[in-house]
């Protein structure tokens, strides 16, 4: 039986005296009818793709497809050259890596959707930054990605990770909860604190809409990735201090489902409201259509 709630996940871990990643990898091996090693090899493939996307993104300043971004990671890097980040190296890395990955996505680079392409910078930036700063070995990073995975999976049983279904809370919000779980684990938090980190992160983004300008995964998506990654870090800081979410994570997922259902479809990936219909966005939209019409005439 697949674990469907965080409560079940916790109980299973207590019953079998396992950590979350162990519980998760056993279950996955069963689902796919493969060995635990084979499963971990697949997770490692994703992890490698994430590292590569960061590397590529950190070196590029090529415009994105929609031409609304692609230069911000380079700017941030340049700034840090002379102005070391006052919040520390971890903050700096998370910020740059998440920007790098989502810009890479928007310029048609190779990324791992996690849980979606629009939210692809959040989980990797946290895991890879932690790995680099604290010299964590690859096996432990794989464990953390497995933990992020089962967190996203359990959320997805109630709320599909798609802006069209439930708004951006379901994409970047879920990713933030996933990243928080991974990061808490990498800080050696116990099961309760890991779940609590996810809860705090998820609770704080309920209601986030999806209103991408011109329908591209660029504005607000690219800059939202670093925000959501650092949002995860704040949740972990609080959880480490023993701060507890009054509403437990399973309830928060229920609330997210309900909030998504009540959200107008105009704010769910249709670009019919919000940022997508601001004065500036409309001007940009018109300029592009004219250009497209023009090039069609030329053919």
């Amino acid at each position, binding site marked *: 039986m697949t674990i469907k709630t965080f409560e079940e996940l916790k109980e299973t871990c207590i019953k079998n005296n396992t950590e979350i990643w162990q519980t998760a990898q056993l279950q996955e091996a069963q689902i796919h009818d493969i060995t635990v090693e084979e499963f971990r090899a697949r997770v490692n493939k994703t992890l490698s793709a994430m590292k590569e996307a960061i590397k590529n993104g950190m070196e590029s300043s090529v415009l994105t497809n929609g031409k609304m971004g692609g230069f911000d990671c380079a700017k941030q890097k340049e700034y840090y050259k002379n102005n070391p980040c006052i919040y520390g190296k971890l903050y700096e890395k998370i910020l740059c890596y998440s920007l790098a990955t989502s810009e890479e996505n928007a310029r048609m680079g190779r990324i791992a*959707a*996690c849980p979606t392409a629009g939210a692809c910078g959040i989980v990797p930036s946290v895991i890879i930054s932690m790995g680099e700063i604290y010299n964590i070995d690859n096996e432990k990073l794989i464990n953390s990605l497995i933990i992020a995975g089962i967190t996203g999976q359990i959320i997805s049983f109630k709320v599909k990770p798609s802006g069209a279904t439930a708004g951006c809370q379901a994409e970047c919000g879920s990713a933030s909860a996933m990243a928080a779980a991974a990061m808490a684990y990498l800080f050696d938090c116990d099961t309760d604190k890991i779940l609590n980190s996810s809860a705090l992160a998820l609770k704080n983004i309920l209601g986030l809409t999806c209103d991408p300008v011109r329908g591209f995964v660029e504005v607000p998506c690219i800059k939202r990735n670093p925000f959501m990654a650092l949002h995860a870090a704040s949740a972990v800081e609080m959880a480490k201090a023993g701060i507890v979410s009054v509403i437990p994570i399973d309830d928060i997922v229920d609330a997210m489902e309900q909030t998504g259902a009540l959200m107008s479809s105009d704010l769910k990936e249709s670009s019919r409201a919000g940022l997508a219909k601001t004065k500036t966005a409309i001007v940009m939209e018109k300029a592009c259509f004219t250009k497209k019409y023009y090039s069609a005439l030329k053919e």
Partner: protein
Amino acid sequence: MNEASILDIISPVMVGPSSSHTAGAVRLGLIARNIHGENIKKVKIILYNSYAQTGEGHGTDKGLIAGLLGYKPDSTIIKDIFNSQDMVSLEYRFEFRENFAKHPNAVDFIFEDDNPMTISAQSIGGGEIKVCKINEFDVSLDGKFNSILIVMGDKLGAIAKITSIIQKYGANIATLNCDRKTRGQNASLVISLDNEISADAIEEIKKEISPHLIRYVKKLEY
């Protein structure tokens, strides 16, 4: 279908920016290639609605072509596909249309080569796809299994004959879907297999029931 897995959450590894408009487009191209056959010389591609409007910025056009050429959704060549060597032997053109009776992310592949054929399909989200029409025949195919696709007159006992041939060739039927609007009309049959089946089996079915259309469509690996 498999139960939702952690691997679905932390992947696919793909070329951005959008699972439906980019990865989905590559998979649409790939399945069209699996249905038509690899030897593609000339094709017209019609993009509808959202695919037509925002497709260019999402690399939908590049994705579709890359798929037709057999590239996977994570091939880094997709970005530069129009400049690649493979393009030399492929004649193609795009048309953009609005038709709200169609799915927001709908596409028609019109092959105009030795094997003329029209395939209508759509990208239904998260990179998942659906083929809904081949020539004038309604079908339903998602690329998750190796499948035998058959459009035939509504002949008595045909299904029994087909399944016995499949069994004879040692293939396992996972699901069998038959779609027929009214009695006596054409029926379209999609038989999903757990394993592979030889070309001989397809030939034998062809001889036995002389269908309007029969295709063995390999599943999409990605």
